[in-house]
Every structure is written in C-alpha cells, then in structure tokens.
C-alpha cells in the first residue's frame, strides 16, 4: 500500500516534469502524448474546429475530456506546437486539394540543388 502510493507519486512527479518540459520524454511518453493528441484532434475534426487556439472556448466546450488528456500527457510547449501545426497542416492539405482540383499535377519534389539519378 505504502509502496503503491510511493510509485504513484513517482509517476505523477515524472508526468509533471514532462509537462513542464524539465525532462525530455522517453519513447513511450512520446507515444502516449501522440495518442492523446490524435484523440484530441479527432474530436476537433468531429466538431469542425480547425484552430483550437483561436476558437479556444468552442474547443474547450466540445472536447473537454480529450483536451484534459492531451494536456496531461504532453508537455505544455508541445500542446501549443501541435495545435499550431494542425492549422498549418489543414491549410496545406486544403491548398493541395484546391490545386489538384485546378488540374495541377502532383510532383515528387526533390528540393536538392543537384540532380539525382
């Protein structure tokens, strides 16, 4: 019982450190964070919310549980980063779709300066 409590508090301490960014997350902690992120984004998708930073109130109302999970498992900096990344990613995909609708041909672009065989 005492040991269990001790372990629990150790895990909590570690999670708090990950959230604050004082320790670098391990592989499993990263996986956990990415899963929470995907869950949160799926909820935003269902509620047609693109920018969770701009539509903060709507996002908090619609995805309360998912948001709590996301913020619990990820560093605060990562939460902001992923929310911004989502907006850019959606915009990028929309732009690609728009271009393809206009008849643009998708290219496997190599941004190297030199030619590759």
């Amino acid at each position, binding site marked *: 019982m005492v040991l269990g409590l001790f372990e629990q508090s150790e895990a909590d301490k570690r999670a708090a450190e990950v959230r604050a*960014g*004082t320790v*670098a997350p*391990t592989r499993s902690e990263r996986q956990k964070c990415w899963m929470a992120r995907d869950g949160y984004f799926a909820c935003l998708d269902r509620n047609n919310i693109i920018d969770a930073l701009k539509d903060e109130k709507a996002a908090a109302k619609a995805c309360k549980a998912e948001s709590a999970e996301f913020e619990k498992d990820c560093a605060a900096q990562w939460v902001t*980063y992923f929310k911004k990344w989502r907006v850019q990613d959606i915009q990028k995909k929309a732009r690609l779709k728009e271009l393809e609708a206009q008849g643009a041909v998708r290219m496997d672009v190599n941004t190297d300066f*030199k030619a590759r*065989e």
Partner: protein
Amino acid sequence: MNMSHAIAPMRTFSSVLSRTPARQCQRFISTATTTRPTVPRLQAQLHQPVAQRRTYKTVEEAKSKYRSGPFSWKAGLLFVLTGAGLLWYFEHEKQRMQRKRIADATKGVGRPKVGGPFELIDQNGKPVTEKDLKGRYSLVYFGFSHCPDICPEELDKMAAMFEKVEAERPGALKPVFVTCDPARDTPQVLKEYLAEFHPLFIGLTGTYDQIKAMCKAYRVYFSTPSKVEPGQDYLVDHSIYFYLMDPEGDFVEALGRQHSPDQAAKVILDHMKDWQGKWKKD
C-alpha cells in the same frame, strides 16, 4: 519509285535517240563537235543498276551471299552483346561520375564549405573533435531531446539507415547526433535519449558557444535562446538534414526527409564504393 518510272522512259528515249539517223547525220556534218555524241552514252552508264557491277567467281557464291546477306547469327549475337555491354558500362560510369561530381562539388579547395574543426563532448563526457571522426564516413544530424515529432521520426530513420549500411560495411559509418539545445541536453540526458534509438549513436553537446560554432560550420539554422530561465520550456526550430561527411571530414551530400532509409543507405554505400582514400581500421 517515281524516279525509276521517270528514268525508264528517259533511257529508252535516249537509246532511241542514239540510233536515229539524225545523229549519224550530225557526225557527217561536223567532225569538230566531238563532245556532243558522248552525252547520251554517259547518261546510259549512270542509269546502270549497281548490282550488275559486282562479280562473283561462282554461281554458288553469288547465291549464298544473297541467302544470308551480310548478317549471320554470330554477327548478330556479337552486336547485341557488345551493345548491351557498352550500355551497361556507360550507365555505370555515368552514375559513378554523377556521384563523383556531387562529392567533388562539395569538397572545398581550402577550407571545407560545410563542416570543419569542432570541440564537443559525447554522452559519456569524453571530448570529441573532428579528428575522432576521420577515417570513416559520418552521418551528422542536428536535433534536441525535447523535439516533439520530427527529430524522433528522423532518428528512427537514421537508425534504420545506419543498420543497413552497417550490415554491408561494418564500422564504415559513424552516426552522430549533435544537440542544438546544450542548455538542457547534458551528456546524461543525451545518453538516455539516444539509447532508445541506437546503442551506437554518438551524442555531442557542449557550451552554447561551442554548439553555435558547430551549427555555423554545418550551416545549420537553429533558434535556441542563448539565455534560458531555469525551468523554462521552449522548442528549437532547426534544420533537418542528415549530413554525410567523408573520411577526411569533408561534406559529401545532404540527405533529407524525401529519402527513405533504403534510398539513403544506398546513397551512402555508393559513395563508400567510390572512396579512394584511407579507411580507419580498428
């Protein structure tokens, strides 16, 4: 087709002409104009079929030449084989020259354009300089342990390509991770972080100024704040290329996100095949 049709009547016409009494009359009339009668004869010669000029000793010889022509199956086979051989050789040479061009284009005349001397410490606290990387190819990647998504993915990819190269040429490549975040990535942090990707990864860190010099030498852009408050969390924006360096420490090629581990490993192995210089042996 049309020509021969046109020529045929012409010939008959000229031969008819030569037999006409008019020509004979001409001779009688004027002996001074000797050039004139030769003209129809020349024309007739020109129109003779070419084949008629060839001579064969026997009828069999003539027949056999017609049957096989100038091509025999031996000649055909030789032609195809030589052609295929040359094609393969030229393609092989072309690819080699292209790689050489890439490697040479990035090899600085005096000072290397990318890379150069550095003084950092590895994840065990041991000093490492550019001299320690010589004698082998090295794959240099810049990142930081608090990286949210790209670096971990790229490091997994780096481990995959390293494994592939290692399988074919053990000990020929050193995988190097340089942190852009020296304030938080101490040797101990790097040790724990990199162990999850590959046990042979070398993690380099140092003071802010050392890292700044290293990033500048490798033309790496990074945005780590120089002064960090204790406990402050931040992300680092940085370039995400793998830098392939040759055994002399000169930059060879940058591998990007567009390369799969297989493609990247092939590029590295091909460059190794071309290397004429020295290799370090353990």
